[in-house]
């Protein structure tokens, strides 16, 4: 099951606004560093078609190596197009019933954003596989423990603000996985085509969550 694999992998690398022609070396670097799940994020800075092209590039070139999905998915059309491009999971900032239902109808993994108990429980009832706890940045870690007391079966992925120096604290507080963006895929490295540094960073993250 892909849900088991994602739980085992623990990290979803978030690729946002990275040029199309750098996707293959970046994906290679992440794979070499131990990453198995990558999210290509819909963004205001580029067209949806560009994002979908990148999903297709990874899906076509990394079969059996990397699982690719889409992030910041806000509507059903984006869900459908992600599926067509070869995406296997859908991440959203919010709890949108239509997006979650469409994702499950198409047989993909649903990871909607939720924060309050109402949002979390709604997301689960709509069919979510995992909850993206967003924004996790600066969240009081006792919050994670508190919501996991009654909701002890929920599987939380912490997104935003996850860094090498705090990933362990979040894991200890009870999240089962992480969405990691800028601290892993550093814009400086991308600009300089320094993909080796990204592999090194990925390895450090993998070491921390072992």
């Amino acid at each position, binding site marked *: 099951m892909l849900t088991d694999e994602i739980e085992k992998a623990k990290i979803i690398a978030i690729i946002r606004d990275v040029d199309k022609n750098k996707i293959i070396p970046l994906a290679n670097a992440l794979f070499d560093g131990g990453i198995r799940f990558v999210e290509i994020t819909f963004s205001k800075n580029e067209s949806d078609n560009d994002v979908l092209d990148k999903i297709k590039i990874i899906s076509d070139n990394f079969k059996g190596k990397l699982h690719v999905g889409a992030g910041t998915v806000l509507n059903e059309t984006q869900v459908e197009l992600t599926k067509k491009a070869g995406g296997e999971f859908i991440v959203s900032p919010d709890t949108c019933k239509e997006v979650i239902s469409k994702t499950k109808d198409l047989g993909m993994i649903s990871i909607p954003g939720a924060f*309050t*108990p*109402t*949002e*979390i*429980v*709604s997301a*689960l*009832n709509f069919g979510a596989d995992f909850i993206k706890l967003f924004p996790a940045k600066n969240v*009081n870690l*006792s*919050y994670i423990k*508190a*919501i996991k*007391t*009654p*909701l*002890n079966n929920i599987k939380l992925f912490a997104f935003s603000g996850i860094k090498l120096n705090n990933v362990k604290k979040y894991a200890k507080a009870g999240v089962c996985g992480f969405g990691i963006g800028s601290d892993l895929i550093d814009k400086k490295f991308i600009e300089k085509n320094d993909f080796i540094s990204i592999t090194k960073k990925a390895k450090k993250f993998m070491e921390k969550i072992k």
Partner: protein
Amino acid sequence: MDKVIPVVVIKDLKDTIPTLQALKDGGINCAEITFRTACAADAIALGVKEFPDMNIGAGTVVNLAQAKKAVEFGAKFLVSPGLSVKVAKFAKKKGIPYFPGCVTPTEIMTALELGIEIVKFFPANVYGGLKALKALSGPFPQLKFIPTGGVDLTNLEEFLSFDKIYAVGGSFMMKGDIKANCDAINEIVSKLGK
């Protein structure tokens, strides 16, 4: 309803009677038995049968199926960590009080639209405690709260002093000596004249 609603986790059905008896002996006549354990529904049924005058409800009700089961097994009220519109409509139809967890103004307004005027506030300490409750009471003067999570004997008096607090929830009285905890609670409640 009592001013303190014990959140009771029954892991083994045979613990039901002694646990509820201890609360009753302590002068607390209600209990929220959470749906976190496999025997929760049976514990509710047993509790309702053995303690017919006790106000026994179901907690951690996260979906309609659980709500239906809880009511079928005799729960006299329902509590959720969050707000479920489906559970709210079902409870209303059945005429059973439903206390959903609401922390944002949007969630509170949704509850009000469903005819709910008492909400759980969870986890209370993380969402700003009493200060947040006072702020939320400004735009929603009709609303009463059941803060849960982070309320204990050290701050119970402070919480209950605020007139928008319907009751407080928690499992703080279940740890250690239940009787002694209940005595401490009763002292605070009677001091406040509630």
